[in-house]
């Protein structure tokens, strides 16, 4: 009887005790959350520690403590807590993401990849797609920092395949594609962003850049015109627009160009190349002749040889001269690029046209 009575009495006391422990744990956790929101991570750490004292196995408390420690750059402590949490719940998305961040900060590629991937495929209790997207975007940024371009590109493709109808997200993905020089995917993402937000200047500029890099100068011109109109201070887009416009004006191989206009462009390009050659030879005269100078002289001889035949009449008489003349122009622009003085806008445009039609 005494044992039963004692048992009941202790049960009553324990109920009071655990209720108080629960209350204190919740109170300190709330304080920690508030401190974290106010940017007071050190106070948050103390509060979460106190909360954990009353509920040592509380996953949320411990995770919050780890996040607060990570915010204070106390990564070793945060890491230790996170590893414990991971051992308890290896499939927890937040824990994996935090561990991924810590290993990324330490530059440990393999472990960072492992935990970021865990986070991407982990169980997220709410908004799983959004959390996975955040994890993948962070992973992509990490891979880009580490110059792991191929891996970053494959992650980007996976990311792009599951993006929701959200212009900023498409824009972010497109920018990342630009970083890995995947202009085709970048342009597609910019277009998606513009589909959702027609006036987005960043998307317009990005699409212009992507189209420019792909050699689609007419598209580039269109996007860049809109971008510059929306944001006249965008110097990069303005420069690109000028170049794209010049390319479109100089390119003799465009389909819509009449024969007379083509001939005019060929002659103009040929003359520009000749000026470029002359300028280059004037600069190289004081120096001893190098191999490239000899090449330039050969090009000069070839240009001089062709010069008498490059006229509207000559081109009409012999349509093959268009290709011959432009081959000479492309050769001159490639040869002089880098070895001679800075090219003019026209020279740059001709170089781009050479890449567009003559390969690299």
């Amino acid at each position: 009887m005494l044992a039963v009575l004692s048992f009941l009495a202790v049960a009553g006391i324990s109920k009071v005790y655990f209720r108080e422990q629960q209350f204190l744990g919740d109170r300190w956790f709330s304080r920690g959350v508030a401190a974290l929101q106010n940017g007071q991570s050190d106070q948050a750490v103390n509060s979460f520690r106190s909360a954990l004292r009353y509920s040592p196995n509380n996953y949320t408390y411990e995770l919050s403590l780890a996040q607060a420690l990570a915010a204070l750059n106390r990564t070793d402590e945060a890491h230790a807590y996170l590893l414990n949490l991971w051992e308890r719940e290896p499939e927890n998305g937040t824990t994996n993401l935090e561990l991924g961040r810590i290993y990324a900060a330490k530059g440990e590629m393999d472990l960072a990849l492992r935990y970021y991937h865990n986070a991407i495929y982990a169980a997220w209790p709410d908004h799983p797609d959004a959390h996975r997207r955040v994890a993948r975007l962070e992973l992509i940024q990490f891979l880009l920092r580490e110059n792991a371009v191929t891996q970053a590109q494959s992650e980007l493709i996976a990311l792009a395949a599951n993006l929701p109808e959200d212009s900023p997200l498409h824009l972010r993905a497109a920018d990342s594609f630009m970083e890995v020089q995947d202009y085709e995917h970048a342009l597609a993402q910019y277009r998606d962003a513009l589909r959702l937000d027609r006036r987005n200047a960043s998307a317009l500029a990005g699409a212009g850049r992507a189209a420019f890099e792909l050699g689609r100068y007419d598209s580039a011109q269109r996007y860049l015109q809109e971008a510059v109109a929306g944001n006249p201070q965008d110097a990069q887009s303005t420069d690109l627009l000028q170049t794209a416009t010049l390319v479109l004006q100089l390119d003799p191989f465009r389909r819509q160009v009449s024969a007379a206009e083509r001939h005019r462009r060929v002659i103009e390009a040929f003359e520009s190349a000749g000026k470029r050659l002359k300028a280059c030879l004037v600069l190289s005269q004081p120096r001893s002749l190098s191999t490239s100078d000899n090449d330039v002289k050969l090009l000069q001889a070839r240009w001089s040889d062709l010069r008498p035949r490059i006229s509207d009449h000559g081109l009409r008489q012999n349509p093959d001269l268009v290709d011959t003349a432009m081959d000479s122009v492309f050769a001159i622009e490639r040869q002089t690029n880098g070895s001679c003085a800075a090219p003019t806008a026209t020279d740059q445009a001709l170089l781009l046209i050479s890449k567009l039609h003559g390969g690299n």
Partner: protein
Amino acid sequence: MEAPAKTQPETIPPRQEPARAAVMPGPSARSLFHFVFREERFFLVLSVFIGIFAGLAVVCFRFAIEWSRIYLLGSGAPTTLRLLLAPSLTGLVIALLVIHVFPLARGSGVNQTKAALYIYNGFVPFRTAIGKFITAALAIGSGQSLGPEDPSLQIGAGLASALGRRLHLSRERMRLIAPVGAAAGLAAAFNAPISAVLFVIEEVIGRWSAGILGSVVLSAVSSVVVMRWFLGSESLFRIPPVGMVRPAELIAYSVLGLAGGLASVVFAGGITTLRPRLKALPRWTQYFQPAVAGLIIGLIGVLGAPQVMGAGYDVMDQAIHGQFTWQLLGILAGLKIIATILSFVSGTPGGMFAPTLFIGAMLGACVGGVEHIFFPHLAGSTGTYALVGMGVLFAGFLRAPMTSVFMVLEVSGNYSIILPVIVANTFAYVISRGLLPTPIFDVLTRQDGLELPSMEEQRDESVLRVEDAMQPVTVPVLDDDEPLAQVLRHLGESSSNNLLVRLSPSGWNAITREQVQTMVNEGKGELSLRSVLPMRQLPWLHPDQPLDIALRYVNESPVVPVVSRADLRKLEGVVSRDDVLNRYKSG
């Protein structure tokens, strides 16, 4: 500090043989009771109830410590003011209580329980249990660097003793009831029944016997069941995955054992040196000693190491999970030694188990951290080192080698670290024994003027055996089928007056030359020895038996045969009374 010798229990323990099982109201009921429950069976049942009560008491004790902490130090990180005032002012209150109300509540409680067993016939005043509960809860809750396990042990013993007195158990049972309660209290406090049973057997009782073992196990198990009912089955600290990967890691654990052994010596040496000096100070200083100790510990907390305050299980948990740098771990181990020495020598009630585990965990994790930097291929996980470190200090400081091994295994629930634990504990134990020959508990009892049996000394005592006194066979040995005339001829060749007779199929007897001569003279020369031998056979001994046993037989016969255990007819030697006495004289 433990009860000094001059401090007697509040009431004289019953020395007379009390009526057994006097709990029953009338003679018929008592007869029925005796029929169903003889005292030994009743004692087993009682052990379960002792465990239940001890478990309930320990649960309340844990609540009391936590509430003390919350109200004295605050529910969150303590402020500077609280860090300084809580332990010092509470120290004053504790001193008043210990000096004027609960004089036997001082110290850890282990030696008091031993004293109850060996001196006071199992008597532990109930008032002491109450006093221990209150004062230790206040001390630990206010931040004194002490633990709840030893007080739980004494509270359990006090409850058991009170229950035994209430039920008028026999003196023999009363003597055993304190260890039974102690095991229950310790098991509930540790959440580790095997370790508690081993500790009580190893350090309190000092011997294994089926009777006491059953009671101790039952009480420990029932107390742990009760404790887990209320507090859950989780260990005192969360255990990460631990284990040993490569055998070469044993080298690293040996280093931990060495470090642990030295730390144990420093820790024990500090206590045994300072304690008598503080006791020798004027009596009025005893009112302030716990307060001063508390103030210094509070200062340590203010200066950046509040982790050393209190029992520190949450800090151990953090260390096990690798949340401290090795430098901080080393500092915490050192400061905890200082803080615990101060708390303990000041006479503040509280235990040394938790601080020992704390120091071991910090030291282990620190050594593991250092080795991880310099010898990454040798070092295992921090958690493993911290756990092994706990066992190391337990073996080196408390000098309970068996308990230390099983404690780590039981707490970790992982058998894979048994090798590191054994290796490291052995190093620590050997170093501690080499530098401090007397274990800490024995030094403390002797400082108090008590002479309790030292379990370690008992374990180390070399037992003299029959083979140590045994002499080669010089007397004639004959079979019992030989005729007396033939026997006489054999005796003629020997100078001995005695003859040993090998009986068939087994057994030994003896006869003298005179007896044989007389019978031959009477014309019985054709009779066999068997027919004339005395009816009573000689006792015989085996070489490995304790020499004490020989003392029982050497007066029955001039020589006692020592025979092989494999063949009882094969004589290995003989012993006489003089042989035994000479062996004892030579030491």
